[in-house]
């Protein structure tokens, strides 16, 4: 077993209104950052996972997202894994 650091990025579905992202976008514009065309806001979770391999860590994290960490109706997620031996 090795320890893996799994980063989970959960974002509101692209087609759905993201009022928090819009509010941040407006605030950036008000501060003079006119170059910002769009802001979308989500969640970033960092998990420490014990697993036999990188693939297993990834598969377990995917199961966690499907069951709890992301809502398939309203959100999409992406995973990134770091750590383990032989890297």
């Amino acid at each position, binding site marked *: 077993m090795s320890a893996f650091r799994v980063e989970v990025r959960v974002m*509101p579905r692209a087609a*759905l*209104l993201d*009022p*928090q992202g819009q*509010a941040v976008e407006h605030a950036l514009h008000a501060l003079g950052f006119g170059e910002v065309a769009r802001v979308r806001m989500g969640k970033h979770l960092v998990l420490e996972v014990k697993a036999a391999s990188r693939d297993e860590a990834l598969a377990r994290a995917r199961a966690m997202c499907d069951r*709890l*960490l992301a*809502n398939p*109706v*309203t959100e999409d997620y992406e995973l990134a894994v770091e750590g383990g031996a032989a890297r």
Partner: protein
Amino acid sequence: MKRVAVIVFPGSNCDAETLAAAQAAGSDGYFVWHRDTDLRQADVVILPGGFSYGDYLRSGAIARFSKVMGAVTEHARAGGAVLGICNGFQILCEAGLLPGGLMRNAGLRFLSRPVWVRVEQTDTPFTCLYDKGEVLEVPVAHGDGRYVVEPRTAAELEATDRVVWRYVRDNPNGSTHEIAGVTNASRNVVGIMPHPERRDAPALGGQDGARVFHSMEARHATQHAVDVRAVDDRHLRV
């Protein structure tokens, strides 16, 4: 007299009013703690409003895995009546007992004010004493009240008459199709964002919400299974 179980989660804060509203309507109401697995022969289960588990992760996301939800799901699958109010609606969506999900209000502000809803369906255990098309004044109190479903599901909800309450005059939170409440395919599970328990007596500013609770009592215990089948037959033909 119906046995009405009001589920209490850590962070529920409308449980007492909801129980009082059910009792005022003549029900034999009682609390069931979220760690219990026995609904004690409930005819009706109500998931009350509040902020279960502090709304951490997503509203309802953690409550949906609490121990009692296994029994609630079993009760719902067997055709038993289930009502989710506000946070209860969010929990039912997270549990997959109702379609869709509830996201941050389009205007970002927490809304705590009266809204107006039109009763769209009266063949559910919680709306059978209303008239179709009747407009009710009931309060909302939510930050995550924007009902979201995929367009295909929204079309299906409309085609199968599953939108129970719809916001009129304005759409306070940006909900898809102005949806304020929905029911499942077998019409025994209902979720609504407004709080009928906060408008069930003149002293509370109105009693437009009272018939949600009186409706539970109006339905005969044996009527339910037949109703569900009749409704399903109708929808199979659609």
